C-alpha cells in the first residue's frame, strides 16, 4: 500500500481543483471498498452499488474532509455507513429472505450430512453456510470480520477506520467468530 503520493496529498489536489485527483483515490481504494461492501452485503450487485455510493458520497463531502483522520478511515466509515443504510432500507425484505435462508440452511446442511460424499461439494456447502452465517451477524460484528478477512486490514487499521479502541476491535472480532461458530453448529455444519 506504499505509494509515492499519500492519499491526503491527493485529496488536497482534488480540493484545489484537480479534476483527476479524486479518480486516483477511487482507483486506489475501490477494490478494498468493494470487498468490504461485498462482505457486508453478500451480493455483488449490492456491493457495486454501495461502492459507487460510497465514492459519490465521499466526492460530495470532499470539502468536509479536514484531514483529522486518514483518507482510508474516512472512506471506510462512509462505506460501512452506506452498507448499513442499504440494509436498513431493505430491512423487511432482508428479514423475510433471512427466514427463508435459515430454513434453507437447515435443509442444505442436512443434505450435506447425508447426501454429499464428495469433498468438493461439501466444501462448497460449508462455504455457502459460512457466507450465510456471516450475513446474519449483527452489523457491528460483521463489519470487523469483513474488514479483517476480506480487506486484510490490521487491527490497528480497523480501529482507525471505525474510530474504536484497539481492544474493542479485538473483542468484537472474537465475539464475531464465536457467534459465527455457534450459528454454524446450530445448522449442523462441521466447524472443526
Amino acid at each position, binding site marked *: *500500500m506504499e505509494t509515492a503520493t499519500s492519499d491526503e496529498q491527493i485529496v488536497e489536489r482534488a480540493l484545489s481543483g484537480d479534476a483527476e485527483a*479524486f479518480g486516483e483515490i477511487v482507483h*486506489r481504494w*475501490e477494490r478494498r471498498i468493494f*470487498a468490504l461492501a461485498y462482505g457486508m452485503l453478500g451480493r455483488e450487485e449490492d456491493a457495486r452499488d454501495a461502492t459507487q455510493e460510497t465514492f459519490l458520497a465521499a466526492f460530495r463531502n470532499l470539502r468536509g474532509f479536514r484531514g483529522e483522520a486518514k483518507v482510508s478511515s474516512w472512506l471506510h466509515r462512509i462505506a460501512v455507513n452506506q452498507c448499513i443504510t442499504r440494509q436498513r432500507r431493505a430491512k423487511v425484505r432482508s428479514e423475510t429472505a433471512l427466514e427463508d435462508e435459515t430454513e434453507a440452511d437447515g435443509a442444505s446442511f442436512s443434505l450435506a450430512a447425508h447426501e454429499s460424499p464428495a469433498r468438493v461439494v461439501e466444501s462448497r456447502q*460449508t462455504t455457502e453456510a459460512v457466507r450465510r452465517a456471516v450475513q446474519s451477524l449483527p452489523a457491528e460484528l460483521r463489519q470487523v470480520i469483513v474488514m479483517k478477512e476480506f480487506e486484510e486490514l490490521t487491527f490497528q487499521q480497523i480501529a482507525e477506520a471505525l474510530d474504536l479502541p484497539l481492544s*474493542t476491535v479485538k473483542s468484537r472480532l472474537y465475539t464475531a467468530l464465536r457467534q459465527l461458530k455457534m450459528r454454524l453448529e446450530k445448522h449442523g455444519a462441521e466447524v*472443526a
Partner: protein
Amino acid sequence: MNEKETLETRMMRNDDDAQACARAEDLVTYLYGEADARAAQSFEAHAQGCASCRTELAQFGHMRASIAEWRKEALGSLPSTVAANSTPVIAPPALVYSERRPSALAAIREFFTLSPAWLRAATAALVVVFCALVALTIARSLEQPETITVERIVSVKPSDAELDELIKARLKENSEAIARANGDNQVGPTVNNASLPGDQPARNVNRASKPNAATQTNLARSRAPQLKISPQESREIARDLRLVAANDEEDLPRLTDLIDEAN
C-alpha cells in the same frame, strides 16, 4: 462509549458461552498473526493448559479457511492488495461530473466570464438589435385593425341593429362612390333600403337600377332614419353585401329528403 462497547461485546459473549477465556483478545491477536514474538510465546504457553483456547483456536482456524474460500470464490478476480493496473470496479465520480453538460444559463455565464470586454459588448449589442427587430415585427403584425374588425363581426354574427348600421354605411359608401364616378347629376343606380317596398327581397337592391335613381337616392337619404326593415331582409341584404358569411349550404335540400320525396 468504549466501556459501553466492551460491556456490549462481553454481554454477547456471555450470552453465547459463559466459559470464554479471559485471554480472548490475545487469542485473536495470535490467530491473525499480529502478536509479537513475546506475546505469541506467552499465549502458546497459556494455550497448553487452556482447553477452551485450544479448541477455539482450531475452530476459528477452520472457519477462517472457509471464509477465505468464500472470498476467493466471490472476489477471485480481486487481489488481496491494491492492483495498480486493474480494471476499475466503478467510474470515478470526478469523471462523471466532468461529463455532465452545463445548463444554458451556466454556459452563458461562463461565456461572459471568460470572454474579453469587446466580445461581451458586441454580443450585448447584437442581442439588443435582435430584440428590437423582433419587437418591430410583432408590432407590425398587430397593425391590421379593419380586417380584424370585419372578420370579427362576420364571425360573431352581428345583431339586427348592427346589421342595419352596417348596411346603411355600406350603401352610403356605394352611393357616394358611384356619385363620384358619374358626377353630381348622374348618381349611381344603387339605392338604399328606402327605395324598396317592404315585402321585396333584399337581394334586388343591387339590381334596382332605374333612370330616376338620383331622385330616389336623395329621397332615400332623407328618409333613411325612419325606414323599417325586417330582420330577415336585413340578413339577406347583409349577405348580398358580403357583410356576413353566406350559409348557402344550409339552404340546399338534403339528399335524404330528396330520396324520401322520390319514394
